[in-house]
């Protein structure tokens, strides 16, 4: 099978590059070994920098609304984080004093949303908080399974029965000017969020939960759909097992499912992520990039991979594949001519140019898409 570009990895970086190239008229295939870190997306485009407007436009074309303004995001454990671009789900506050009075509403028995932490943190910044719980009969069946009172399962019920929760909250609401709810709304689209936001005199803010992230899943789904509508081929649940390389040029890759039907392309983009998604693989003695054997710098002494403080910057998160200025991946000291690396497989090797986290994924995706498009023109 022949494509202009084959992207390995279907997360935020892979989809952003895929949509950009497909929009430019390329024929693109994405090979995705399962779902990805979008399912744990907080909604904050950290370190997005100058790509803010461009990514907003690209996401808008997919039906994903973003919120572009500098302010503070209220995190699930009560801390505030400075943001410049977020998913529309995320409430952004101009300062740390988010409201005079807040009503925090959780669903009884949902353990992945932490009202007590939020309340105590908000009170320190002068917001009086009340925590209340609601339950509706339509959701009670979830309890029959001790593990499945999860954000996504609640969201499925909420998308149909949100009005019942709204009327319960109407009864609870007194003079609060802010209502905090867990992000368990709008698995398929944003319409339910809009309806809830306009249902009360108070402002409504949706706060993150433990994974899976409902806004993240929705975003992933909409981006993938956009990519496919543009004519892209998305191979879900498949993985690249080997690559054919000759004189610094990758000619094709083989996947586990398609085996003999190899994927040929002019350009290849490696967006397989960090350790979690096996873009980087570690053993007791080494860290390697398993598909192409790309160059990675890391200390030989394993003790130097870690900081004993869990919350410190962990050295192993800095390791990543080496690239040249145009993000061409380096193997045995030489950049491959048509293989690019984007997203968290870079670790923090290009932090100075492209940041980290979501910002890294998007900014490197745009950079490589531009390089490829430029080459084609």
């Amino acid at each position, binding site marked *: 099978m022949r494509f202009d570009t084959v992207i390995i990895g279907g997360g935020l970086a892979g989809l952003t590059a895929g949509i950009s190239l497909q929009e430019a008229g390329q024929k693109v295939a994405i090979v995705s070994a399962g779902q990805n870190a979008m399912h*744990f997306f907080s909604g904050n485009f950290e370190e997005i920098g100058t790509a803010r407007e461009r990514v907003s436009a690209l996401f808008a074309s997919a039906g994903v609304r973003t919120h572009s303004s500098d302010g503070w995001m209220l995190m699930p454990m009560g801390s505030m984080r400075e943001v410049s671009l977020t998913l529309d789900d995320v409430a952004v506050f101009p300062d740390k004093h988010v409201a005079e009075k807040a009503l925090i509403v959780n669903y009884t*028995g949902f*353990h992945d949303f*932490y009202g007590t932490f939020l309340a*105590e943190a908000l009170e320190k910044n002068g917001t009086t908080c009340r925590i209340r719980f609601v339950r509706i009969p339509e959701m009670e069946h979830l309890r029959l399974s*001790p593990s499945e*009172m999860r954000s996504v399962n609640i969201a499925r019920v909420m998308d149909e029965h949100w009005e019942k929760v709204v009327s319960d909250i109407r009864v609870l609401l007194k003079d609060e000017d802010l209502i905090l709810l867990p992000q368990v709304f709008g698995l398929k689209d944003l319409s339910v969020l809009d309806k809830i936001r306009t249902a009360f005199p108070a402002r409504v803010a949706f706060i*993150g939960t433990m994974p899976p992230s409902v806004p993240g899943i929705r975003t992933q789904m909409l981006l993938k759909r956009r990519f496919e509508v543009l004519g892209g081929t998305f191979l879900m649940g498949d993985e690249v097992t080997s690559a054919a390389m000759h004189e610094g040029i990758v000619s094709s890759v083989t996947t586990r499912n398609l085996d003999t039907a190899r994927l040929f392309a002019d350009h290849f983009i490696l967006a397989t992520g960090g*350790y979690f998604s096996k873009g980087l693989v570690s053993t007791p003695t080494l860290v390697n990039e398993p598909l192409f054997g790309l160059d990675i710098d890391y200390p030989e002494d394993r003790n130097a991979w870690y900081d004993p403080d869990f919350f410190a910057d962990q050295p192993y998160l800095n390791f990543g594949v080496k690239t040249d200025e145009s993000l061409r991946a380096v193997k045995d000291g030489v950049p491959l001519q048509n293989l690019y690396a984007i997203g968290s497989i870079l670790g923090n090797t290009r932090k100075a140019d492209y940041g980290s986290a979501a910002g890294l994924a998007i900014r490197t995706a745009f950079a490589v898409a531009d390089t490829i498009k430029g080459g084609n023109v």
Partner: protein
Amino acid sequence: MKRNEYDVIIVGGGITGAGTARDCAMRGLRVLLIERHDIATGATGRNHGLLHSGARYAVTDQESASECIRENMILRQIASHCVDETDGFFITLPEDDLNYQAKFVESCLAAGINAEIVDPKEALRMEPSMNPDLIGAVKVPDGSVDPFRLCAANMLDAKLHGAQVLLYTEVTGFIKEGDRIQGIRTYNHQTHKSGEYYAPITVNAAGIWGQHIAELAGVKIGMFPAKGALLIFAHRVNGIVINRCRKPANADILVPGDTVCVIGTTSTKIPFEECDNVKVTPDEVNLLIEEGAKLAPALASTRILRAYAGVRPLVSADNDPSGRNISRGIVCLDHETRDGLKGFITITGGKLMTYRLMAEMATDLVCRKLAVDKACATAETPLPGSGGKSFREVAEKIWENPTTVQKAAVGRLGMAAERMQSSDSVSQSLVCECEEVSVGEINSAIERLDVNGLTDLRRRTRVGMGTCQGELCGCRAAGLLAKAHGCADRAREDLKDFMTERWKGMYPIGWGDALREAEYTQWVYKHVLGV
């Protein structure tokens, strides 16, 4: 009697202290137990969890061996919910001397240990994970025992018999009158308050830290701090304990315990100052994997959950640099006869296995001194939760059709699981998905078992001990603690400590799936939750 006066004060909340507190309380004494951290934080919680048959000591130390097998049989009766009657094999590998086997079996039988030679093929059929190259196998009545549960059950029973327990309370000095210890001075690390407690007898059951306690009392005991490192694998590779049939050496025991299995140990002398912060080195990790894979080859490719180390409270006898040859025997010191210091007893040495016997010896001495004439009943009286032949039997005694959550709770709590459960479906929902720990079990532990923080909770419920090492359950449990203690700030700080404590055991084995889990956990805590 004043509020702070007791018959006996016990220093140390490990298994020896808990057992002694229970024995003393059952004999009608007014007991105070003081522990600087939480229960089972020293050697009690940092070993294999092997229910020794005594076979390991049979050749070198008959006395220890026969103590072990007697206590082994007693624990099966009084602590059935803490014990898994797995049996054990002592296997001979091609590089070992098969002649040792005959001597081994003979010594076992002499000590009263039912050792039975099994044909290697038959042994391999019974325990398929064993090295298929084995040339000899002896079956012995080894088993596994959960030290946290055992310690908590002793502590709970002591309290049910009237004992008072003060955790996070450190002994800062002794109140002396002439040559007699009258009581202790303390400092509570949580309330930041000092205290004074009085009793005619103080029992030093502080394990390796007993040396320091003795110094405070003005007497000297020479402890030999021998670090032992162990690895936890992510699932039960073996169903039967596997030992090497040779002179005891490094990494020659693989114990299946609860949902995991543990390989250990190493033995290195460490400076006394390091006892509070022992670390596992890469060399130790490598050695444990290498030797472990000889017992069960699957260990070479099984995910490792964490590494940890404990310090054996051995009492120095000679200049042996490894500590291997020091007697593991029980040392009960009457400092009145030894050093002329009245009202002070040290109980040390020994093993997890013989804690009850140690407690009995210490309590006998206390009773003699207090002129209390009451016999020890701990060998016949079941601990809270004990009862029933198998956990299946217990589960089905309590519920007609036990759910997975209920089965798991019975596996941890035995008969006591009945109290933990409630018909409310919110209580049944899971906090820890790896180990199936429910909201109800957590809340009961918080109510009944002196839980101050997440790490305490882990010791009592296995929260955070599963594959994800707290990633999923840490914040859920923190949420429940915040509610129970009415303080979110404390719970959030506690959560940070908990995750750092989990990481401490993970980074020594930080590669492959463990590193994947670590990266994911980093992402969730830092970027999603904003801890």
